[in-house]
């Protein structure tokens, strides 16, 4: 694990590597990949955070930003994906503090692929502004946002998929799912598709709703308390996000921490 306390330019090594951000300052980080790699970034504490990533031609990169901060996280990200590169940026947001995240992913050259994916257990205020822009032909952009909204949680996701003119045969997709357990819980998801080219494919799917009463009754009739049901259902809802990462080590880490955190919060 590499600790990060100040502005740093990080050259990602091939394979798996781990980072931990722990500072009071505002910091700016750049991640540059040279070969296929997986990066796990734990956020313990930070001032305003600025993240830049760069994926050169042909590499496959997975990032997992795991937010453990007890203070508000205010993060601004931009991700550059070059030709035939394939980048996944995943967010584990199951802490109690607020998050304000603004993301811009640029699919810069032909054949670039990008996925933004988040799993949020929302008991505070989580606001995400996500943009994936197809700048070149034959590019593929995707966003997957899954959230469980608890007690006083407020979730706001503004997800924009944009295909510029000339980026033909490109695709822009997104899926959003939000689940709540009580009435009066607050989730707003705004999916947007801005398309300036004819020869493209684009879609968005969204579901929002409360846990089914019959499902709750069924689980309880086998002896589980409301709290245990909430926890079990939340896990089922949020864990699939781990499948977006092609790294067993990362997957297991995410699952373990998530189960523990969900147990604490539900």
């Amino acid at each position, binding site marked *: 694990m590499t600790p990060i306390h100040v502005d740093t330019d990080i050259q990602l090594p091939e394979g798996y590597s781990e980072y931990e951000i722990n500072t009071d300052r505002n910091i700016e980080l750049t991640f540059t990949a040279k070969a296929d790699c997986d990066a796990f970034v734990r956020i313990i504490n930070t001032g305003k955070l600025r993240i830049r990533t760069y994926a050169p031609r042909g590499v496959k990169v997975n990032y997992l930003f795991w937010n453990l901060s007890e203070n508000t996280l205010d993060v601004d990200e931009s991700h550059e994906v070059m030709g035939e590169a394939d980048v996944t940026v995943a967010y584990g947001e199951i802490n109690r503090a607020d998050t304000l995240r603004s993301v811009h992913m640029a699919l810069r050259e032909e054949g670039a692929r990008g996925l933004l994916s988040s799993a949020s257990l929302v008991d505070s205020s989580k606001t995400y502004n996500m943009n994936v822009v197809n700048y070149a032909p034959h590019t593929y952009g995707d966003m997957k946002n899954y959230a469980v909204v608890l007690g006083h949680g407020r979730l706001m996701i503004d997800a924009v998929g944009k295909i510029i003119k000339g980026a033909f045969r490109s695709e822009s997709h997104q899926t959003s799912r939000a*689940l709540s357990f009580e009435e009066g819980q607050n989730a707003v998801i705004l*999916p947007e*598709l801005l*398309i300036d080219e*004819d*020869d*493209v*494919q*684009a*879609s*968005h*799917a*969204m*579901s*929002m*709703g*409360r*846990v*089914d*009463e*019959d*499902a709750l*009754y*069924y*689980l*309880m*009739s*086998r*002896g*589980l*308390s*409301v709290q*245990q049901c909430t926890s*079990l*259902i939340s*896990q*089922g*809802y949020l*864990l*699939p996000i781990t499948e977006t990462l092609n790294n067993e080590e990362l997957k297991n880490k995410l699952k373990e921490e998530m189960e523990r955190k969900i147990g604490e919060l539900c």
Partner: protein
Amino acid sequence: MKTLEIKDLHVEVEGKEILRGVDLTVKENEVHALMGPNGNGKSTLLAAIMGNPKYKVTQGSIVYDGKDILAMPVNERSVAGLFLAMQYPQEIPGVTNSDFLRAAINVRREEPISLFKFIKSMEQTINDLQMKEDLAHRFLNEGFSGGEKKRNEIVQMELLKPSLAMLDEIDSGLDVDALHIVADALNKLHQEDGMAMLVVSHYERFYQLIKPQFTHVLVNGKIVLEGDAELADKIDREGYDWIYKEYNVQPAAAEEVKKVSASIGTCAVRQASTAEAKK
């Protein structure tokens, strides 16, 4: 000895009174058949005992093992030894059978069950019920056939070992082979652990396999006739008409029971505003 005692039970569903004064006693080791035409309160009685929030008890009492069941939330009734094998088991996407069952077993224990022991008993049970081996890793009832869902109810029962099992038309949707598999599993629990059963079924074939000692006939929210196994047999041969005449009762007009097939995956208030921009 654990005894279920129901006295003068009145139950409403959505403001409509379905049960109008039911008395019933089920003792340990006993097997009771609950019969009656559709829409006359059989499922309602089982649901009220289990504590389904849609069924409101307006009068009367239910006591099990000396405890006031009506004062307990659903999960505590389960831990007290009650189990309802449901007519329409819910599909719960995202929650695996094994995670669910381990949690359900652990609420009954001081110390959590060891993974090894759990896997062993799960495998044994899956084998007993002749389910597919991947059952443990599949999401709870999701994509199961009707028969698989019913057998999965019995898998749960076998692992949770209730002292009183209620079966709501567990035999519907089962083919002849599956019917025998399920009956064998039930008889084993009955004989080995003294599990009592309260069974709703329309089919004499199932009753022949599990051999109830008592039969109760529920018409229009009241038990109008009680007897032994002979009674179930007679109803199978002659239907209910003779009971209506002899006891001067009218059945409640049978209503189509609404099949609840909601699940978490599809519980969206607002589902899939799916826009496809294709050209």
